[in-house]
């Protein structure tokens, strides 16, 4: 059978022509971004403006007509890369995260900042905070809450002793994939990963990979290293790591529970601007007597400010005393919110605002709002 390749030629020529135009436009966009970067530097503004990046993306995806070329999700994916790449051309972003490479924090950082950013893994959360506090990193990305494990206490403790501000939050579904160097599922003899990741896919493995040896490793990263060097070995981890380790995804979404997600905080030394749908996180200490928390919360109810989170944490400096972490609707620079926070502050022993940010699209564990 002969294939008529002649009919492809005109379309391929069109593609080549369009690619040239795209390249020209992307280069043009990068040059404008670099120009913008210089101005930001002169005004001492941060290179990365999360709110602006989100606005750019929303504007583009809103204009997508369904059924004409790519859908809005695909358009978002293409433009996310363009935005991240152009931003990197302004100045490389440095991000501290809880290492080693291959952790979920790493996957979250890759999702938020793109592959071109410089990632600085920290041995523990204290080090991640310190790296951003000292200016060595522009951002710190720290786990805040998990649907099954709950709030991350150590993050709360570190928030009480930092001058970093919460800039944004990010929800990452605990999404696991089976990856190997070659991508051929029939050659597998060993599957390696952190014991927790193996446990989260127990049912899937029993059903689809009977007889394959499960080898626990100290980290997902260690599992990935095994998979790179051994053709009969695969690793289970977040699919974002496939490109980082040059692995092939053989099967995605293999976790047994699909609703498990982790919320991360993105911290920096700057405040984010008002977007109109912000939330504000703060912590405070309440006097040690009956009714004190009630008195602290009453001004918020009076001002009609919605409470979206309230956690308690023992005060490490004083036994039997607690600190409260409160999230409310609104930006701390908005008038109504300023008033409510002032009234709360008057009832509390000590209050520190940690920052305002846009909430993730599907918050993990919102306190119920008053209607």
């Amino acid at each position, binding site marked *: 059978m002969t294939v008529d390749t002649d009919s492809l030629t005109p379309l391929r020529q069109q593609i080549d022509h369009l690619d040239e135009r795209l390249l020209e436009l992307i280069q043009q966009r990068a040059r404008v971004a670099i120009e913008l970067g210089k101005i930001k530097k002169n005004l001492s503004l941060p290179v990365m403006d999360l709110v602006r990046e989100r606005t750019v993306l929303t504007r583009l995806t809103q204009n997508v007509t369904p059924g004409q070329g790519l859908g809005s999700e695909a358009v978002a994916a293409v433009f996310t890369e363009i935005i991240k790449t152009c931003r990197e051309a302004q100045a490389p972003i440095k991000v501290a995260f809880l290492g080693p490479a291959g952790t979920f924090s790493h996957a979250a950082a890759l999702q938020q900042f793109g592959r071109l950013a410089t990632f600085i893994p920290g041995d523990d959360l204290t080090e991640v905070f310190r790296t951003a506090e000292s200016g060595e990193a522009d951002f710190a990305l720290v786990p805040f809450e998990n649907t099954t494990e709950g709030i991350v206490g150590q993050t709360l403790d570190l928030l009480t002793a930092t001058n970093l501000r919460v800039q944004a939050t990010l929800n990452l579904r605990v999404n696991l994939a089976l990856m190997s160097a070659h991508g051929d599922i029939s050659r597998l003899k060993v599957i390696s990963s952190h014991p927790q990741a193996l446990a989260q896919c127990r049912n899937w493995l029993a059903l689809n990979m009977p007889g394959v040896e499960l080898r626990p490793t100290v980290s997902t990263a260690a599992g990935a290293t095994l998979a790179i060097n051994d053709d009969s070995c695969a690793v289970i981890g977040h699919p974002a790591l496939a490109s980082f380790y040059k692995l092939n995804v053989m099967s995605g979404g293999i976790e047994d529970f699909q609703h498990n997600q982790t919320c991360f905080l993105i911290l920096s030394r700057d405040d984010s601007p008002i977007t109109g749908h912000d939330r504000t996180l703060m912590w405070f200490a309440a006097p040690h007597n009956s*009714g004190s928390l*009630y*008195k602290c*919360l009453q001004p918020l109810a009076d001002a009609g400010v919605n*409470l979206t989170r*309230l956690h*308690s944490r023992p005060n490490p400096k004083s036994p*039997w005393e607690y600190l409260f972490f409160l999230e409310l609707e609104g930006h701390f620079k908005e008038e109504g919110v300023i008033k409510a926070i002032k009234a709360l502050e008057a009832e509390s022993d000590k209050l520190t605002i940690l920052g305002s940010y846009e909430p993730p699209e599907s918050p993990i564990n919102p306190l*119920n709002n*008053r209607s």
Partner: protein
Amino acid sequence: MEPTCSPAPKPQAKAPAYKLTSRVTHPQNSLIPLGSFVIGGPEFIIMAGPCSVEADPQMLGTAWDVKVAGAHIIRGGAFKPRSSPYSFQGLAEEGLKKLASARELTGLAIVTEVMDSTDVDLVSSYADILQVGARNAQNFSLLKRLGQLNKPILLKRGLMNTVEEFLCSAEYILAGGNPNVILCERGIRTFETSTRNTLDLSSVLAIKEKSHLPVIVDPSHASGKAHYVAPLSKAALAVGADGLMIEVHCDPANALCDGEESLNPEQFKELMLTLKDLAPHFGRQISTIANHNPQLAENA
């Protein structure tokens, strides 16, 4: 001719009213684990909170005060069985969410009432213990449905139920496959009008004799008077109850439901300290208030 199929078993001449609930079949006390506590053991379990869940900050404020005072479990009604249809009926799922946020804040388990079989799935998706109210104590379809769960059930004694009828109600839940039943004496209807109901403290002894299930006492609903709550609580401890259910409201005067029988947080704290001191005399303990708690020093 003999019939080919076997005949239906004849009812026994005198079938026991309850079997699984009886101490005959289970001589040891039942222990019901809940988080880091065990109900029915040496720990004297205190469930406390507002009668009904109201808007913030009432629920969160009260929950926090109750935790700091040493309660083990937070109570609060989202579905309220009220004598009059015109009384406040509760916040329903909205109220369950507020209870869940109180659990998030305090780390304590929550107990709340389920009034109808159709709400069982909804309520059990939020609550750690499901409560059957006195008015539903003989709602057998509800009891059967709860028998299919694994979560602990707090079964209140019906206003007009004898101890035997009470144990029969529990039997419905146990027979369905759920062994985690906690009984609650909350007063019965008698000719006496000086209290809202007559708290039948001797029923605790009768139940302990006949059954292995844990029993707690609700002095708030029984008396209907806040200043009766502390003395009756001490009596319940003395008589051998496994715990108490007490109504606490951060602002009793403005409570939407049963404010006159609610303690304020200060009164509750005082009662908790007294109970902690008394508990060892009756082979009990309250471990949620530590000895180096500054509250104790203040009150010593």
